[in-house]
């Protein structure tokens, strides 16, 4: 991937495919370390699948036998000297918590660190394709915090205006880009 924001879009698509109702994308920048966390409440993976999920030869794809999403994200982190982890739970009973959290850290000062790229477009793409998803996006730096919750947006917009209507997407683009 050319940008970490594309990896984030790709990993979040896994959450959506796992039938997540809520997805949290959290970016935290402290000095030269960027932590990216994508957490969902989807169906989760079996312990065996989770253990091998970041291996290219593990996939849920039916089009072919390799899956590159998690391996590419892992490689992007590790090539900067950062780390990658995946924690996943499947519910055995209906009341059990379930879902998957993928966390990767990046040394943004490392020469092999991909740029973050256009994270706004990633968030907008997720809203456009999944207007009913509960998505929380948090970007925290030492200067402050940018936060967008589609639940809060929906609360104000009501039932009549879908989150992927052009006006709402235009508002979200300006909000995320910090425009006046």
């Amino acid at each position: 991937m050319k940008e970490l924001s594309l990896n984030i879009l790709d990993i979040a698509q896994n959450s959506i495919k796992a039938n997540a109702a809520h997805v949290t994308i959290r970016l935290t920048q402290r000095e030269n370390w960027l932590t990216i966390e994508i957490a969902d409440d989807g169906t989760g993976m079996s312990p065996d699948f989770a253990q091998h999920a970041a291996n290219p030869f593990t996939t849920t794809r039916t089009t072919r036998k390799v899956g590159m999403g998690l391996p590419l994200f892992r490689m992007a982190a590790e090539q900067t000297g950062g780390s990658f982890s995946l924690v996943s739970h499947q519910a055995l009973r209906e009341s059990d918590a379930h879902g998957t959290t993928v966390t990767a850290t990046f040394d943004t000062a490392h020469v092999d660190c991909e740029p973050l790229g256009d994270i706004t477009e990633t968030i907008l793409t997720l809203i456009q394709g999944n207007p009913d998803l509960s998505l929380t996006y948090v970007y925290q730096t030492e200067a402050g915090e940018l936060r967008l919750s589609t639940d809060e947006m929906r609360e104000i917009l009501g039932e009549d205006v879908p989150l992927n209507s052009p006006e709402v997407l235009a508002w979200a683009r300006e909000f995320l880009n910090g425009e006046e």
Partner: protein
Amino acid sequence: MKSLQELAEIRERSKSKVALREGHNDIRIVVGMATCGIAAGARPVLSALVEEVEKQGVSERATVSQTGCIGICRLEPIVEVFESGKEKVTYVKMTPEKAKQVVSEHIKGGKPVYEYTIGEK
């Protein structure tokens, strides 16, 4: 900084528009957004399609949606156009510029841009 309150204004404005939005939405434009599509540049293609459908005034007839892997990853980004009563048109190796042209010539004008379709490469 934009405020959430502006969404309330969008909601108010939309109320007056609901009556006008009686479109048929009989054209579906679908973009492959699996790892292969994303890596090949599907995200800017999708956003160009969303923007052009609105800008060129065809949002009453056409919707843009996302799907997983279409199965021919070396030709990504792939865009499929489904129209009721017509055969599916598959565009391959798409770019935002080509997407703009597809909206104006195919979606608006009714003539598929054959040079970007899968049979023509």
